[in-house]
Structure formats: structure tokens, C-alpha cells
């Protein structure tokens, strides 16, 4: 485990009095597209927030490149590890280019506010997320899908080798969900380590190279989705009886929930 760039050991995660997880050990394989999945309130977003140093573990520690993450300067961490939070606030009247360029903050100083590297990173991030055309538009006026691409562009402009995404597809329609996930797959192929919390098990199976399945604050299974996703696992984790077939498009597991009543065959 300790050879992964990012891992958490013996984590107890809690908000005030409410303990979400105890004795949690998680390692993110380098250069993987890791997806964390599980039923509501299983602690998956909490785990992601702890990995991103947004939440200080009550016991245990998250390690980045061999150091305890909270012991590293925050700006230093921000050059290696990025986060797309579940919800961020769009500042009034901000343009797309302006928002994306804010991702460069950890690379800047008071007297080095906009280097050529900053400019190149922003241009590339906007190209990758296909928002170059929108660069002068006001973010508030964009559709939900466009806005999510802009936030993703901001995270990309940060140019971190590790990128954490907290439910990046929430509030998007199916086409935009796929668009965002395809983009994530491209980023992964380009050499980044990605960690995402997703709700949709089928999407998780399709895109993840490494799956972490959680329930009640514990990791129930992890590994290649093709190996770990079985009807027994789905029933144990989601209390859902299902059949698993092969996704005709991607060859990955596809979960088909059991129908409560037999459908009468069409006349």
C-alpha cells in the first residue's frame, strides 16, 4: 500500500459527533481511474474529502508521496493533487476564461500572477474540455453541462498529476454525464491518476480501472470491476437483487436489476 502516491491508513472519519468510518485503509493505485461507489451515506464522499485534505481524519492519516498530507504546505499539495468539489459557487459576473484561470492559483505568487505557463495551461484546459468557444461568456448564463465542463477546466488548469472528482456527473442529463466521463477517460489515458465518486454502478464499471466498493464506512471490495462486480456483491452492498450481463459496448459488467413482477410478453 505504501508504494502508492496517495493512500489513507487507519482512518477514522467523522463530522462533529457523527462517526462515518473507522479503521479505513485505502490506497489509490498510481495512474488508475479509481471510482468509489456505494449506497447513499456509505461514506464515499467523506473518504474522497479526506483524501483531498478537506476533512481532517480523527485518527490515522492520508499520505501523499510518502508525507502526511496535512504536514505539506497546502499550496505544494495543490500542485500535485486537484479536487473538483461537489458544489462550488460561481462568483457573480465571472467569465469562463477568468474562472478557468483561477485554477492556476497554486502556481502563482503576488509578483508572478500570470506566467506563460499559466496561459498555456489555461488554453489547454479549455481546449480539452471544449469550452474555448465560451471563453468570454458569463458562467452564470451557461447550461448545467457547460458549467460543469468549465469547473472541470478550472481543475485541469491546475495541472495536477492526481485529480479527485466528487460526483462530477450529478445534475447532468445522460448525454452530458457520458460527455464528462469520456473526458475523464481521456485525462486518465493522458497519464493522470483520477479518483471519482459516482452514483451509477454501470458507469462506474464502464470507466473505472479500479473500483472501491463501500458500505457503512467500510471498503467491501476493491479491484478491477470485471473481477469484483458479482450479483452477490451488489446484493450485499445495495440490497438489490440483480443479474449481471456483459455491456455490449464496452465488455464491462452491466447490472440489470431484478424486476419485481414478470413482464407479460408483448402481444
Amino acid at each position, binding site marked *: 500500500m505504501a508504494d502508492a502516491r496517495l493512500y489513507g491508513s487507519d482512518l477514522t472519519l467523522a463530522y462533529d459527533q457523527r462517526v462515518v468510518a473507522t479503521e479505513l485503509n485505502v490506497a489509490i493505485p498510481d495512474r488508475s481511474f479509481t471510482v468509489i461507489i456505494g449506497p447513499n451515506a456509505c461514506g464515499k464522499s467523506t473518504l474522497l474529502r479526506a483524501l483531498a485534505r478537506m476533512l481532517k481524519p480523527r485518527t490515522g492519516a492520508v499520505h501523499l508521496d510518502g508525507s502526511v498530507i496535512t504536514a505539506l504546505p*497546502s499550496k505544494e499539495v495543490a500542485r500535485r493533487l486537484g479536487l473538483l468539489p461537489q458544489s462550488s459557487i460561481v462568483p457573480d459576473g465571472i467569465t469562463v476564461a477568468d*474562472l478557468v484561470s483561477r485554477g492556476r492559483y497554486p502556481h502563482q505568487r503576488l509578483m508572478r500572477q500570470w506566467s506563460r505557463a499559466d496561459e498555456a495551461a489555461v488554453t489547454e484546459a479549455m481546449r480539452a474540455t471544449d469550452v474555448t468557444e465560451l471563453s468570454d461568456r458569463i458562467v452564470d448564463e451557461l447550461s448545467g453541462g457547460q458549467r460543469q465542463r468549465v469547473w472541470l477546466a478550472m481543475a485541469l488548469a491546475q495541472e495536477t498529476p492526481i485529480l479527485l472528482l466528487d460526483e462530477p456527473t450529478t445534475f447532468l442529463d445522460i448525454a452530458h454525464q457520458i460527455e464528462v466521463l469520456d473526458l475523464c477517460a481521456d485525462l486518465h489515458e493522458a497519464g493522470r491518476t483520477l479518483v471519482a465518486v459516482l452514483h451509477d454502478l454501470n458507469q462506474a464499471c464502464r470507466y473505472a480501472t479500479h473500483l472501491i466498493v463501500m458500505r457503512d464506512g467500510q471498503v467491501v471490495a476493491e479491484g478491477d470491476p470485471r473481477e469484483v462486480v458479482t450479483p452477490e456483491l451488489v446484493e450485499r452492498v445495495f440490497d438489490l437483487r440483480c443479474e449481471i450481463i456483459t455491456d455490449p459496448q464496452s465488455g464491462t459488467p452491466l447490472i440489470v436489476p431484478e424486476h419485481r413482477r414478470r413482464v407479460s410478453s408483448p402481444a
Partner: protein
Amino acid sequence: MTVRVGPWSVRLAPRALLTGALLLLAAVAVSVVAISTGEFTVPVPDVLAALVGEGTPVAELIVAELRAPRVVTGLLVGAAFGVCGAIFQSLTRNPLGSPDFIGFTAGASTGGILAVVAGGSALAVSGGALAGCVITALLVYGMAFRRGVQGYRLVLVGIGANALLLAVNSYLLTRANINDAATAGAWLTGSLSGRGWEHAVPVALALAVLLPVGAALARPLRMIEMGDDAARAVGIGVERVRAAAVVTGVLLCGVAVAAAGPVVFVALAAPQLARRLTRSAGVTLASSALMGAVLLTVSDLAAQRLLAPTQLPVGVVTAAIGGTYLAFLLRKDRY
């Protein structure tokens, strides 16, 4: 627009620069009018001579002792209110997060009234105002604190504190003897009348320390406007920046009220006006400072001249001018 010199680079928004230049010009123009005109006109060349001690004794008295310190105090206090308002509006992500609404100004008033009632000197009133502002801020911040401070909690707790303190202020005024009540009442409206260098210099010294701190906080504050997680993700120590910003904002508010009384509306209107003129995203500190300075000096000029020889306290005019202008800008608002 980017200016690069060797390894250094600074990012400048043309529109913000232009707005800043125009506001600076406006501040100079208002100052010149306020210093050279009035009951006794001093031509501009004589103003300059008087300021360097080469004018006639009368001109020197009027310019250097009466009018100049009043204008300078107005510029500095206006800038302090502008930056203070910008800081708190940014922290709360809410225009209603201004010190006028979240109790800080009211707390400063309570301190000032207590000093008046206790028969304190002008200096004691200023000290009382500063202390009142700081104590109120500590209480409001302390009550709003729960795993960090959320903007809306700060606004809600502040509005509650504000209502309470206004009641206390009214009570103190009704219990005071008639002379104290009149003195306190005049001070409560906020005024620059009779301000000399002894008022201007302390404000200038305070701003010399607080404005650079504010400038250093401006960029991280803008990032925090996107949410705590988003700011932490780019490497900002959110709680540390926020604590530093609160201290800076509270001291600015306290110093301003100590010098000119609780002038309303500048802290609310200046950042909003500045934002609309510069079309920048979120709150900007530098243009808010300039806008505050212009707003307060223009208002003071109007307060002296509009109903001359009747002299209005400047607080009456800031609300009228700032409110009208803000309504005008909001009407054609796109941002």
C-alpha cells in the same frame, strides 16, 4: 492584460484600471473644489502656496487648518469604509454582509454613546467607538462560529446583534441628559465637520498598515468566494485567511467610525458601485477603497453646500447619494 518584466508578471484588467484612474481623478477634483471654494474662495495657486506654508495667514488658516484636514479625513475614512465593506461582503458572499447591517457599526455607536454619556473627551469617544466595534465583532464572530464561519450564519447573527445594539443605543439616548443626548445624536449621524489633522493622522497611520494587509488578502478572498472546498483545493488556508480578513475589516471599521462617527451606507454601496463600474467578478478591494473615498468626500461637499448656510451631517447625504446611484446602476444591471 498582462505586464511581464523578467520573471515577474502582473495581471491588469483594462476596465478596472480605467475606472480606478477616473475615480482617482474624481477624488482630486472633489478635493480641489472642497478646499478652494466655499464662503471664502481661495484660488487654486493660493491653495498650493498655503499648503506649503507660503500663503497669506488667512489662506493658510482656512486651507491648511480647516479645509484640508477635513477633506483628507473624508478620503481616508471613505476608503476605510469601502475596503471594510468589500472584505465583509466577500466573506459573507452577500451585499447585506456590510458592517452597517451585521452590528459592527451599531456596536461602535454604542461605545461612542457610552463615552459621551460618561462625559468623555472627543478622544474617549473615538476610543469607545473602536472598542465597541471590536467587542461586537468578537461576539458576533464567536456566536457564528461552528466548524468555521459560514457567511449566512455571520449575516444572521450579525443582524440579530444589530437589532439588539440599536435598541441599546436608543435606550442610552433616552436615559442621557439632554445635552449629552444632543451631542451623541449629532455624532451618531456621522460627520466630518471640524475634523483636524489630529483626526486625519491616526486614520492615515492605521490605513498605512491595514491597506497593504488587505491588498495581500484580496486574491485568496476572491478564491474563497467560490466556496471553502474550492479554495482549499487550490491551496488556500481558508480559516487563516478568513481570520486575518475579519481582523483587518473590523479594525478598518473601528478606525473609520472613531474618526467620523457611524456614517451609513458607504461600506454597503462602495463595493457594489465599484464592482458594477469595473465589471469585475466578485468584490474588489482597491476600487472599493477609491469609490468609498470619492463617495464620502462628494457627500461631505454636498452636505456643506446644498442647503448652505445650513450644514448637514455627511451621514444624511451618503445614504441619499449612494442609494440613488446604486438604484440607477441596478436598473440597467446585467452583472
